[in-house]
């Protein structure tokens, strides 16, 4: 049955014959990538290659050729995945895939990277790919764009920060609930402290569970900071933890014994307000270098807010029976004390203490 064909080399392989390969190819591909969403694409890709090469295929070799091609296609997907992983060290670091499950994850990640890239502008995408994939250095990119290497590097940093955020959103297949979410995530992703402060990202994370979850890998990426601490406050035992952490950091900054006690006491007072009035909140402590050495404690909660801040700051405002907020007392313990609160939107207390001269 093949002799006729053998002499008929110029004639195209019958398309129907190629189509008949589909079940075999599906088996081959699935055996390698499982029920991966891209499996069908891989089959189609194999068919396309076989069709393109059919003139060169020896008669009777169609099926083996197709199977070999399918293997290659799968392997090249892996290589792509690998490359994505290799390049992803700046995007995200999932580690190198090993088993079949990992391959699936890796391909999902590749797809997510694809969707994330689609969120960038044409310009941004071109710049990023030129640098990350083609390997063009910032200087030559700067020349091409009539800019400086530093500016290009900064731009790349911002683009990567955005890409990481878009990637996480794509991977989760979610659209953030508020306008602020993206801005907050990008600020965290870029480890941009100034922007984070502007946006008060920590308060947002307290209020937005999605961002709180998504931000975890972003925050972990950043350098581990020994000059700050975050203590979530939900129950009475957390108060003790918060004041211990604050005390430790303050001791490292060089505060003396009296100040350490004042700081720990102020933290204790404010953390207790969270437990009593808000259920959920956070104490964050950060050491300051400028304008001189000091410590800043920010206490945030998602509670009902203080109806009359000025009154709550007055001495004697229902401090009996433990109904007071302890704001005036805590204020005396610190050098600077700022309360922001609006009903229904929680309260933020920022308090700072500076190291005394000498």
């Amino acid at each position, binding site marked *: 049955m093949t002799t006729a064909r053998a002499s008929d080399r110029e004639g195209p392989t019958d398309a129907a014959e190629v189509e008949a390969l589909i079940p075999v190819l599906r088996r081959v591909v699935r055996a390698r990538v499982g029920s991966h969403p891209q499996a069908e694409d891989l089959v189609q890709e194999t068919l396309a290659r076989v069709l393109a090469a059919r003139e060169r295929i020896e008669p009777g070799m169609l099926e083996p050729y197709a199977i070999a091609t399918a293997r290659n296609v799968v392997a090249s997907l892996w290589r792509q995945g690998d490359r994505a992983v290799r390049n992803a060290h700046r995007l995200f670091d999932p580690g190198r895939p090993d088993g079949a499950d990992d391959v699936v994850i890796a391909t999902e990640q590749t797809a997510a990277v694809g969707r994330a890239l689609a969120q960038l502008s044409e310009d941004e995408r071109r710049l990023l790919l030129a640098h990350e994939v083609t390997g063009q250095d910032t200087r030559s990119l700067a020349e091409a764009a009539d800019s400086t290497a530093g500016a290009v590097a900064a731009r790349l940093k911002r683009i990567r920060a955005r890409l990481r955020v878009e990637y996480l959103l794509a991977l989760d297949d979610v659209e953030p609930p508020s306008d602020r979410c993206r801005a907050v995530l990008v600020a965290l992703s870029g480890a941009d402290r100034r922007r984070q402060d502007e946006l008060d990202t920590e308060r947002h994370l307290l209020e937005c569970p999605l961002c709180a979850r998504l931000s975890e890998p972003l925050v972990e990426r950043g350098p581990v900071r020994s000059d700050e601490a975050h203590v979530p406050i939900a129950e*009475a*035992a957390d*108060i*003790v933890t918060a*004041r*211990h952490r604050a*005390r430790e950091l303050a001791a490292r900054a060089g505060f003396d*014994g*009296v100040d*350490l*006690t*004042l700081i*720990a*006491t102020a933290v*204790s*007072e404010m953390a*207790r307000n969270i*437990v009593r009035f808000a259920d959920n909140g956070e104490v964050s402590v950060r050491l300051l270098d400028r304008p001189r050495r000091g410590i800043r404690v920010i206490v945030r909660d998602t509670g009902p807010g203080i109806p009359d801040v000025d009154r709550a700051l007055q*001495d004697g405002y229902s*401090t009996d029976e*433990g109904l*007071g907020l*302890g704001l*005036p*007392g*805590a204020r*005396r*313990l610190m050098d600077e004390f700022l309360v922001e609160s609006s009903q229904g939107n929680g309260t933020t207390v920022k308090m700072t203490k500076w190291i005394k001269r000498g």
Partner: protein
Amino acid sequence: MNTGPALVSILRQGSTLVASIHTALNDTEMVRFQQDLIRQIGEHRARGVIIDVAALDVLDSFASRTLRAVAEMARLRGASTVVVGIQPEVAYAMVELGTGGDALTTALDLEDGLALLADLGQSGPARG
């Protein structure tokens, strides 16, 4: 007699109870301590109570309030309370915080506290 793994200890010495707080207590533990102590004052018909807070590096408003409440409840049961061992930094922080008023009877350490209780026993409720 103790609440939990030796966070506090309450020992009886004659008609005096000596309660020592060994480590920072959270609010729940503080309240449990208060309840235990009051119960034991009743059980032992104690005439004097010493609360040793030398191990505490913070006495915030809640802790001071609890101590005052203990003293008040003890008084209602006929016992005088002396808080001893407040550290210099803690004393300073308490007055800054505004919880350092004169509602608490205090002494430097256990020894002075016992002497003060002896005085109070002989000269009535006035402070020595």
